[in-house]
């Protein structure tokens, strides 16, 4: 009897474990199927390098270059903001802060991760977007920059928590050695701690980027969704995720427009896969 219970539970756990693999493979398979059906008719090159996105016109134009650039611009902007702040705050939490401050800071950072993206988007739309327009004196506040700032908020918790783990796992003896040789605290942190923790920090950055690239709701609300190639970060952009979310609702199942959205999904999947792969590479390195 006990043995049967054991084996039943074992099977259940096995199924749960294997489920995530099955789901990923199935999702990827579905993306491939719909995406390739689209590429067969439209062609990969003209899809990725086309500048005009008029999916419902006749004849329809499916060029996602401006969408790719939009996604990359918002992501790059978010990184420029979130990475330095994230790493500094991880350093502060793990190396400098007194233990009382440390606990409060840590729980605040974790709380930040729990704010739903639609809330961040809404708050950004009502408060930050008008501010951006007024401060920079630009025609509209719905820009890639607004999106970047809001997404930086979302990427920061990931970057802070994982970098902090990496910094904390640097052996004490390294730092003690440096201090004993007469290095100042800043020298020890910069030359020894940061260097030793670097693979973990890079992995943290990559996971943060992964979150930003895939984010949808907030960017749809605050980046303006104009499908043209921006000349600066203070112009509206349209991201790939927002395009899928905004247009999926009313496309005809099996039509070209429907399939083109899956093709965008495929491009997005490839990008996040590469980012995650790099993160894994560095995480593996830091474990060694």
């Amino acid at each position, binding site marked *: 009897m006990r043995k049967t219970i054991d084996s039943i539970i074992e099977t259940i756990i096995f199924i749960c474990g294997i489920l995530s693999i099955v789901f990923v493979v199935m999702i990827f398979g579905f993306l491939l199927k719909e995406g390739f059906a689209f590429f067969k008719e439209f062609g990969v090159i003209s899809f990725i390098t086309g500048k005009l996105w008029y999916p419902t016109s006749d004849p329809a134009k499916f060029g996602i270059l401006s969408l790719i650039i939009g996604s990359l611009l918002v992501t790059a902007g978010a990184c420029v903001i979130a990475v330095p702040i994230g790493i500094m705050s991880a350093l502060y939490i793990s190396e400098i802060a007194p233990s009382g401050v440390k606990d409060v800071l840590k729980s605040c950072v974790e709380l930040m991760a729990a704010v739903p993206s639609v809330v961040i988007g809404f708050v950004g739309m009502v408060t930050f977007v008008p501010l951006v327009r007024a401060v920079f004196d630009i*025609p509209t506040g719905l820009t890639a920059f607004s999106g970047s700032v809001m997404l930086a908020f979302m990427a920061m918790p990931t970057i802070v928590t994982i970098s902090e783990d990496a910094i904390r796992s640097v052996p004490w003896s390294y730092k003690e050695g440096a201090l004993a040789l007469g290095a100042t605290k800043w020298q020890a942190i910069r030359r020894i701690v940061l260097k030793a923790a670097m693979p973990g920090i890079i992995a943290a950055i990559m996971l943060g980027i992964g979150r930003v690239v895939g984010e949808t709701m907030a960017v749809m609300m605050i980046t303006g969704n104009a499908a043209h190639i921006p000349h600066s970060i203070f112009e*509206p952009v349209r991201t790939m995720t927002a395009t899928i979310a*905004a247009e999926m609702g009313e496309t005809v199942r099996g039509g070209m427009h429907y399939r083109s959205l899956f093709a965008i999904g495929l491009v997005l999947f490839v990008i996040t896969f590469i980012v995650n792969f790099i993160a894994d590479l560095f995480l593996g390195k830091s474990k060694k």
Partner: protein
Amino acid sequence: MRISKSLLLFLACFLFFSCSRPGEKGGEYAASIQIKGSDTIVNLIQVWAEKFVEENPSYNIGVTGGGSGTGFAALINGTCDIAMSSRKIEDKETAQAAEKNVTPVEFIVGLDGLAILINKNNPVDKLTLEQLRDIFMAKITNWKEVGGEDRKIVILSRESNSGTHMFFKEHVLRHNDKNAKEEFAPVSLLMPSSQAIYDEVYQNPNALGYVGMGFINDEVKAVSVAVNENSGYFYPNNDNVIAGKYPISRPLFLYTNGLPRDLVEKFIDYALSDEGQKIVAETDFVPINQKGE
């Protein structure tokens, strides 16, 4: 034992569901009609049909889109009882109908009007259709070109799958020319909802966008629109839309073959009733029976 139990349950369910819809005995309804045509109003007609069938469960109403032309073709070929349309029937179609002994009868069941919203502090208060076209195609990019301040224009449009987007594109950008290729400028911001357009216009003096007339209030400004400089400018309100003076509007039609009878008559009566017109307003169109109020 267990099998027979579940079989019993299944049978009970089957019996229950087969009894619950009296009008559906043996899959036959007391009467049934087909409605085909315009995608613009297919949602409105769908709501009418659902409510109508809820009240008269013995009837069956099928509603399919496909475009106004599809609707007329079906009416002429006798494959539908009512054609729904967002344009008047063309002479060519009337002639084709006469050949097949079909006499289309027209009913206006509602109106469709779009307001051009701008910020309250924007001094511009009137625009011609031609100016609107140039603005939305980014040929005019500064408010001073249309009598406003020296500010860049921020174009707000709806997402491309929105019916409003299509109507505006066909009506204002393409002058209802089917072969025209005009598009909204790529720099126009595609907003996920009319509410999002309203919110941006509310706080941004550079922006303009088009929304249903229900969004007009004191916090924002709707511009008066003229066909050209020599014709009058008209403000988007129910009176001007009903009188056909406001240019970005159109009537919504139902067409029947001959004077309606039986279920077709009942359905059109329902569409024109107070309740039917209330649904017109709820689906963001302009009801037609407000003259008396």
